[in-house]
C-alpha cells in the first residue's frame, strides 16, 4: 500500500513540473474572441446604439467566448476586459480601475480570509461531521443530510471549498460501506447531493458564491443597498424550497438500493471521535465567525459599517488572536477571483455608460411584448442556460447589466433593478447539468460514483424545478410580498 502511494506521489510531483503550453485550439479561440471586436468595429451601427456601445457589445462577446472556452484563466479574461476599455477609448483608465474601490471587493477578501481560518483549523470538517450525525438513521436521510450539510456550510464559506471538504468524507463512508462506484444509486445520490447541496446553499448568503457580492457591488453602483440580512431575506425561501425538492428529484431518479446504514453510522462516529475536542484556535475562530455574522446581520447597512468593514474587522481579529498567519492567507485566498470580479464589474459599468445594455435589452426582449411575467421567466431561463456552460460569475457578469438595463429602460414593466438582479444572481448559481458547469460538480464527479449522464439526467429536472421555484418566489414573494 505504501509503495503504491509513493509511486503515485512521485508521479504527482512529476506532473506538477509540466510546462503549460497554449494549444492550437486555444489560440484559435483567443483569435476568435478578438475578432469579435474587429467585427463589431466594421458592422454598421444600428439605430439607438452609439459606436462605443457597439464596441462594448463586441467586448461582451469577447468576454463571453473567453469565459466559456477558457483558453486563458478566467481572472486574466477579467483583467483583459478591464484594460481593453481604455485601450479602445470606451472608458478612461481612471474610471475602470476605480471600480476596484467597490466595497464588495473588500467584502470578498475578508470573507475568504475568514474561510481560510475555518479551513486551516478543520472547523469546517468538525461542523460537517457533527451535522452528519443527525442524519444517520436511514440511507435516504443520510443523503438528505449530506445535501443539507453542504448547503449549510456554503452559508459560511465558499461552495467549492465545501465540495472539496465533503468529497473525502463521503467517499470514505462509501468505501467502508463497500458501495461500488457507478453501480450504486446510493453512491450516486450521495455524491450528487454534495454537488447540488453546495450550489443551492451558495445562494443563501453573500459568502457562498462570488456572484452574490458581485451583484451587491453592481447594485451599490446603481444606488441600491443590499445588506447581509436583506440578501438572506430574499434568497432563503429559494434555498429552503429547492433543497428538499432537488433531493426528491434525486430519490426518484435513482431509487436507493440499500436499507442498512449502520456501517456509515460507525464510520461517521469514528471520524467524529477521532476529531477529538475542540482546540483553542477552533474556539477562537468560531467566536470570531459568530461575531462577524452577528455584525453582518445587524450592522451591515450603510448607516452603520457596511459589509466590507465587518469582513475585514473579522479578518484582522483572526490575525490579532494568532489564529491565522499571512502564509495561510497566501495559501488559501484565491486572489484570482478578485481580478475576475474586477473584469465583471467594469464590464457592467461599460455596458451601462455606453447604453449597450439598454440596446441589448430592447432587442432581446422586444419579442416578449413588454410582459413582465415573460421577462422574468426569460431572464431566469437565459441565466440558467448560460451558467451551465460557463463560469457562474461570468454568466452573472454578462447578464446583470442587461437585466438592470431592462428595469431602467422600461420602468412601466414593474420589474425593478433589484428584482432583475436578484433573479440573475440566484439563477446564476443553478449549474446542475454539466461537469464543466461549476467546480463543485467537477469535484463530486471526480469521485467516480456517478456518470456525466447521471448528472445531466438529474440536473435537467432539478434545473427545471428550480426555474419554477425562482419564478414563483419572484412573482409571489419578491414582487408581491416584499414589493421589490
Amino acid at each position, binding site marked *: *500500500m505504501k509503495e*503504491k*502511494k509513493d*509511486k*503515485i506521489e512521485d*508521479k*504527482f510531483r512529476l*506532473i*506538477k513540473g509540466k510546462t503549460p503550453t497554449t494549444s492550437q485550439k486555444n489560440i484559435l479561440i483567443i483569435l476568435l474572441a478578438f475578432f469579435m471586436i474587429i467585427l463589431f468595429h466594421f458592422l454598421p451601427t444600428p439605430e439607438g446604439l452609439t459606436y462605443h456601445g457597439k464596441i462594448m457589445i463586441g467586448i461582451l462577446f469577447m468576454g463571453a467566448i473567453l469565459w466559456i472556452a*477558457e483558453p486563458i*484563466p*478566467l*481572472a486574466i479574461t477579467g483583467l483583459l476586459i478591464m484594460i481593453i476599455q481604455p485601450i479602445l477609448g470606451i472608458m478612461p483608465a481612471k474610471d475602470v480601475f476605480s471600480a476596484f474601490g467597490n466595497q464588495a471587493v473588500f467584502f470578498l477578501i475578508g470573507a475568504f480570509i475568514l474561510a481560510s481560518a475555518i*479551513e486551516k483549523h478543520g472547523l469546517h470538517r468538525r461542523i460537517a461531521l457533527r451535522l452528519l450525525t443527525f442524519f444517520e438513521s436511514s440511507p435516504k436521510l443520510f443523503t438528505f443530510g449530506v445535501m443539507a450539510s453542504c448547503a449549510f456550510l456554503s452559508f459560511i464559506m*465558499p461552495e*467549492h*471549498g465545501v465540495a*472539496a471538504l465533503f*468529497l*473525502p468524507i463521503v*467517499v*470514505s463512508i462509501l*468505501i*467502508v460501506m*463497500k*458501495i*461500488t*462506484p*457507478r*453501480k450504486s444509486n446510493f453512491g450516486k445520490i450521495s455524491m450528487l447531493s454534495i454537488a447540488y447541496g453546495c450550489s443551492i446553499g451558495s445562494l443563501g448568503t453573500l459568502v457562498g458564491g*462570488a456572484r452574490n457580492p458581485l451583484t451587491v457591488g453592481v447594485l451599490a453602483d446603481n444606488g441600491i443597498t443590499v445588506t447581509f440580512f436583506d440578501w438572506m431575506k430574499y434568497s432563503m425561501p429559494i434555498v429552503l424550497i429547492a433543497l428538499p425538492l432537488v433531493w426528491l428529484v434525486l430519490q426518484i431518479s435513482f431509487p436507493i438500493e440499500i436499507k442498512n446504514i449502520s456501517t456509515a453510522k460507525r464510520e461517521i462516529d469514528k471520524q467524529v471521535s477521532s476529531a477529538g475536542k475542540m482546540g483553542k484556535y477552533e474556539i477562537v475562530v468560531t467566536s470570531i465567525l459568530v461575531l462577524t455574522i452577528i455584525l453582518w446581520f445587524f450592522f451591515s447597512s450603510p448607516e452603520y459599517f457596511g459589509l466590507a468593514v465587518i469582513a475585514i474587522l473579522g479578518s484582522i481579529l483572526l490575525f490579532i488572536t494568532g489564529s491565522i498567519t499571512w502564509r495561510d492567507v497566501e*495559501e*488559501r*485566498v*484565491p486572489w*484570482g*477571483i478578485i*481580478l*475576475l470580479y474586477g473584469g465583471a464589474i467594469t464590464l457592467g459599468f461599460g455596458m451601462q455608460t455606453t447604453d449597450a445594455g439598454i440596446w441589448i435589452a430592447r432587442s432581446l426582449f422586444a419579442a416578449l411584448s413588454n410582459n413582465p411575467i415573460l421577462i422574468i421567466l426569460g431572464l431566469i431561463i437565459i441565466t440558467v442556460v448560460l451558467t451551465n456552460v460557463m*463560469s457562474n460569475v461570468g454568466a452573472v457578469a454578462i447578464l446583470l447589466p442587461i437585466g438592470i438595463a431592462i428595469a431602467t429602460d422600461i420602468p412601466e414593466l414593474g420589474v425593478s433593478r433589484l428584482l432583475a438582479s436578484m433573479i440573475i444572481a440566484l439563477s446564476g448559481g443553478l449549474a446542475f447539468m454539466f*461537469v*464543466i458547469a*461549476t*467546480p463543485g460538480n*467537477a*469535484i463530486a*464527479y*471526480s*469521485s*467516480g460514483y456517478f*456518470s*456525466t*449522464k447521471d448528472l445531466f439526467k438529474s440536473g435537467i429536472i432539478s434545473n427545471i424545478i428550480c426555474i419554477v421555484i425562482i419564478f414563483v418566489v419572484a412573482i409571489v414573494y419578491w414582487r408581491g410580498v416584499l414589493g421589490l
Partner: protein
Amino acid sequence: MNNVIKKTKEKQKHSLFEHILIPISSEFYQKEIFEISTVLAEKFHSTITLLYIIEEKTLDQTDKLSDVYRTTFEKEVTKKEIIQRYISSADNIIFKDAKQLFTRKNILFNETIIQGEFSEVIKGQVAKNDYDLIIMGFEKECVLNYRLFDDIDIPIWIESGHNKESLLAVCSNLAPNQKVPEISIHLSQILGLPLHMLYVVDIEDTVEVDSIGHRSERKSLQDLTKRARSFASSMQERGVQVTIVNGILEKETEKAAKQYEARLVIVGREQKKRGIFGLKSLKRKMAEKCEYSILFVN
C-alpha cells in the same frame, strides 16, 4: 508420442491469451469484466494483471475548473485527497471483487495502480509487458479517451456484461480478414458458442485492404462482391457459413449482432476512412453503439 503431440497442440490451442491485462479507469468501473476474465483465464490458463488507472484527465479537469476559485495549495490538497480515495477505493472495492473471483478459480493475478491518461498508460504497459489480450469496460459519457482502440496492436475485448448465446465474426472489404476467422473459430470451439460469420461489402468506402492493412484504389462493387464470394467459399471449406451483405459496415454489424443475439462481436483491423467531419474512429463508433461485447482483433 501421439500423446505428446496432442498435448502440445492442446497447449497451443489454449494459450491464445496467455497474459491478460484488465485496465480499470478511476472514472468508471464495470464489474462484469471480472466474470468474463475468469472464464477466459480458466479456458486459456492465463495470468491476469489488474491495472487501476487514476485518470489524470478527471483530475486536471477539476483543477482547471477550480482555477480562479481555489488556490494552488487548496487544489493540491484536494487532488491528493482524491488520489488517496481512489487508491482506497481500488484496494477495498475493485481489487477485492477481483480477488474473490480469481482466487476461487486459482487464477494467477497481480494488481497495479498508476496515475496517468488512460490510453497512454495502457500503451506504456503493453509496450513493456507481454500481454496478448486487453479486457475492459466502456462508457460513452467519459472524460477519458479511447485512443488505444486504434493505437494498440493486441486484441481488445470490450465487455458489455450481456449474456447471449452466439459469436459473430465480422469480415469486410476494409480489413485483411486474416486474424478474425482464426480467432473466431478458435473462440467458438473453446467457449462452445455457435459462430456466425458476416462479410460486409461497405458501400461507403469501396476499397480493398490487403494483408498488411494497405488500402487500394476505389473498386467497383462487383469486384468487391467477387472478393467476398471467394472469401466465403474459402471459409466454407473450413466448415463456416458466411453471410455476404452490401451496406455500411457499422450498421450491418449492429443489425447482425441483434439478429444473431451475439454474445461477442469479433471485428478485425478495419481501415475505414473517416468522413470529412468524422471525429471518431470506426471502432469508437462501434463501441458506443454496443449492446453486445466486442473483440477488436487489432
